[in-house]
């Protein structure tokens, strides 16, 4: 498993109370990421979840909640305790502001999506339209 050179990844996950509701890899690169790198990314993301649970801030945007090797996890917590989490690399140098804007737009998208009476709250999101728009936001703010 690579430890000295961390994988350069940009992973966005929405986590509900029990399970991930949505995940997308926002990396624009064409080279495939190795299996080990992907596993490590998910591991870092999920271990950051515990830190989020314990945070007592009343702000929704929690900025960076965990830092492992070169990877950082930024989190945005909605009113209903749904966690929007972004895994990114220090080297990528994403500005705080860009990440915040990204989270705010995805949050708006999420609120609109959950207004659908046929969508059961806290269940996996399988809408294609949602996926396309999140990717577009990723390209707009994070690349």
């Amino acid at each position, binding site marked *: 498993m690579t430890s000295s050179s961390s994988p350069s990844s940009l992973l966005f996950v929405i986590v509900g109370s029990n399970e991930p509701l949505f995940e997308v890899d926002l990396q624009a690169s064409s080279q495939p990421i190795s299996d080990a790198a992907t596993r490590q990314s998910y591991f870092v993301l999920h271990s950051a979840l515990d830190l989020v649970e314990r945070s007592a801030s009343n702000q929704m945007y929690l900025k960076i909640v965990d830092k492992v090797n070169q990877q950082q996890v930024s989190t945005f917590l909605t*009113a*209903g305790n749904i966690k929007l989490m972004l895994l990114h690399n220090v080297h990528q140098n994403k500005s705080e502001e860009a990440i915040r804007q990204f989270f705010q737009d995805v949050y708006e998208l*999420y609120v609109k*999506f959950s207004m659908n009476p046929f969508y059961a709250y806290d269940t996996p999101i399988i809408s294609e339209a949602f996926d396309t728009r999140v990717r577009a936001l990723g390209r707009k703010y994070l690349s």
Partner: protein
Amino acid sequence: MSRFLSNSTILDRPVGRSQRSAEQNVSLSAFSYLFSEMVQYHQSRVDSVSALEHRLEAAGYGVGLKVLELLAYRARDYTRQTKLMNMLQFVSTTAWKALFGKAADSLEKSIDHADEFMIVDYAPITSTSVSVPADLGGLSVDAYISGIIAGMLQGAGFPARVTAHTVEEGDRKKAVFLVKFAASVMSRDATIIG
């Protein structure tokens, strides 16, 4: 499929700015009609009063979860409630105004139990046009509103048991929503500073 006919989805429409614009309001008669149909639907499928109330609560629960997200978003300040009293204030004022057009009539704390609170409404829209026949005894269709409150509190991380009671006060009746928080909520709230 309508998807092929129009390109816009729910994700393209605006969320809605404020409660005051006319397009946001639904007529009371439309709501009453829909609600009465829903009650009748459930009534034909259960055989006890408590099962009926349970179903109404479950129906309201989903509404509560979503209303919480919507109202927090509309507030536009990107903050969430972490303290118990603030959350209850949010439910009894902001949420009540958005759902029923006015703030709840009062929010009270129980003297006997530290984990119980009461939200009082003199004329809840779910029961003002409902008459309960004698054989259905203690049925309160306000269970729907209890479900909404419970959904909002659960979503925000304050699990509670909410029940609706009709209380006589002088010559008029009022609906009292009794909110009993889980022990974990009370102990956590004691440790939060601020």
